[in-house]
């Protein structure tokens, strides 16, 4: 056991994975000498050399495209995109190559690669260093999309992702990188892809969330003494439909919380899954507490991010609904 924040958990897990498997290669901008702008790859180039921890030129589509090509040849590529906001310059490589290689080759070519990228607000990054684009990926068949909310899950999900036979988008909520230190086992363990966590159990209502909003939700629940079932999705594609539906059936009241914009955000799909499968169990509308449908503002970011007040407003509405 060691006490670690998320950056340390990711760093030590990458180190561990690389030491055990020669076929793993990391690549990205400033990940080598500099150790990554968030220090997630700190020290790895010094340890594994420039050939395995590649400082690439400034070209995201090249980073993703090279990773696809490497993976085709049996290398396990773990590319980093410095900020998720810049991933759109590689979007075609993700949508049309990474997500479709296995399918279009009839299963002949597979891509066990893991694309890591920090996402989300909370660090005063403004329009272009705060985006939460997870829905773009979760709408894309062929990808697996995961996001941890704490150092423990970060390690377990990263190991599972590297072992996954399918290409994974590994979204790191940068607001939580150094937010909390917790105990992380030294030995290997896995957090299963497709399985939500239930960090709190309760009967009155269900709050479904993930990533950087998990601590916000948990604090709100504690502070307000809510008897809530809290789901931390962890995997966004495919979501843990059983956990979602069984909790919705149990409580009959659902609030979804995420930071990404509301329209066609993850909350839309969660809501739709519930009203397809459990509408007759519901006592109240399914409410979404999300970032607004605007670009991410710099100076007013605190108004953008969902917080206790907005969550409680929704909670009250579903609890009092008749």
């Amino acid at each position, binding site marked *: 056991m060691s006490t670690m924040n998320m950056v340390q958990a990711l760093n030590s897990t990458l180190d561990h994975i690389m030491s055990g498997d020669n076929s793993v290669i990391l690549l990205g901008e400033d990940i080598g000498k500099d150790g990554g702008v968030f220090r997630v790859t700190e020290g790895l180039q010094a340890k594994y050399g420039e050939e395995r921890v590649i400082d690439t030129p400034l070209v995201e589509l090249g980073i993703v*495209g090279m990773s696809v*090509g490497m993976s085709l040849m*049996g290398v396990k590529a773990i590319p980093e995109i410095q900020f998720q906001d810049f991933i759109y310059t590689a979007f075609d490589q993700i949508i049309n190559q990474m997500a479709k290689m296995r399918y279009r080759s009839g299963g002949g*070519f597979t891509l066990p690669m893991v694309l890591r990228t920090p996402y989300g607000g909370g660090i005063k990054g403004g329009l272009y260093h705060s985006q939460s684009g997870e829905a773009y990926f979760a709408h894309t068949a062929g990808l*697996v999309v995961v996001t941890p909310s704490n150092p423990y899950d970060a390690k377990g999900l990263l190991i599972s992702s590297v072992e996954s036979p399918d290409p994974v988008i590994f979204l790191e909520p940068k607001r939580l990188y150094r937010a909390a230190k917790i105990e992380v086992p030294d030995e290997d363990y896995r957090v299963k892809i497709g399985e939500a966590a239930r960090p709190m159990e309760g009967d009155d209502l269900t709050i479904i969330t993930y990533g950087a909003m998990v601590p916000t939700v948990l604090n709100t629940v504690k502070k307000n003494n809510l008897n809530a079932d809290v789901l931390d999705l962890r995997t966004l594609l*495919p979501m843990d439909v059983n956990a979602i539906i069984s909790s919705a059936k149990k409580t009959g009241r659902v609030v979804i919380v995420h930071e990404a914009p509301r329209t066609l955000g993850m909350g839309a799909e969660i809501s739709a899954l519930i009203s397809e499968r459990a509408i007759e169990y519901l006592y109240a509308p399914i409410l979404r507490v999300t970032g607004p449908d605007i670009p991410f503002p710099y100076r007013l970011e605190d108004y953008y991010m969902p917080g206790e007040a907005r969550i409680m407003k929704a909670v009250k509405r579903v609890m009092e609904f008749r």
Partner: protein
Amino acid sequence: MTEMVNEQNEKDVFVRAYTAMVLSRTFDKKIVMAQRQGRIGFYTPSIGQEATQVGLSMALDHDDVIFQYYRDVALMIHRGVPIEVILDQIMGNAEDESKGRQMPSHYTAKKYNFMSVQSPVATNLPLAVGAAYALRYQKKNTVVVATFGDGSTSTPDFHAAMNLAAVFNLPVIFLCENNGWAISLPTEKQTKVEISEKAAAYGMKGIKVDGNNFIETYKATMEAVERARSGKGPTLIDAISFRMGAHSTSDDPSKYRSQTVEEGSEKDPITVAEEQLKSLGYLNDSLIAKIKEESTKMVNDKFDIQEKIPAPVPSTMFDDVYAEKNWIIKEEEDDIL
């Protein structure tokens, strides 16, 4: 074959190259016809680019890896991909390697180290760079080739791949099948310079070659292959030919170009090859006739046979999105089937 042919086997090698060109041409014409008859859905002919593709193929080993594009039938044929495999793809039938999922001309032939063709042009190029990186890392002495058209040099992926290949000094060959057109846009409107000159912007060797001449293309490719295998880095080859046919069976070139190259004219790469091989004494008119006849028979016969293969069973369309179906796909399959 990795070394230049020697005198003993030159005849065989060249005749085999010619035969592949003829077979590809015959195949092309058959498929274009079949498309008109409604027997297949779509096709992007190789006509005019046979010498480029065969010249390239001649210089490669079996283990070399090819990220080909949608117009590479002569390349596939020369490399030994059976006609059936190509037909199955075009028909999208139950035996197609990609299980009928891809539009015609989007081939996959794993056994022959042909990767899987995507539509967005040139997006295979960064993959080729990554593959070359991985193969070098694995200490394999293989070369990676990416093919693409002249129009594709304008794309983001071309730039990314060229720069990365040069910076990492990788064993990749970028072979531009410069057929003068990108659908309706002539190369002069695509770029103001010769494509071979673009290599210099990346610190890469650039070669311009007569892509209508399979021997010249072969030699140029050999040079690139040797550079790659000896760790001297990537090469861009600009192989100049002419798109003798339509862009695809959906295209009507008369709308945008008056220029044509007729089959059998002196600019037809097959005519060029015939003249070369006749003057070398490797071919004569009756041998040529025989090769053409056999090609026609073979293509017709195989077409008729493969055409009988049914469509893939519907449930296959839900496979291979992932290693294992997730609950979403299972549910959707249940709903649809």
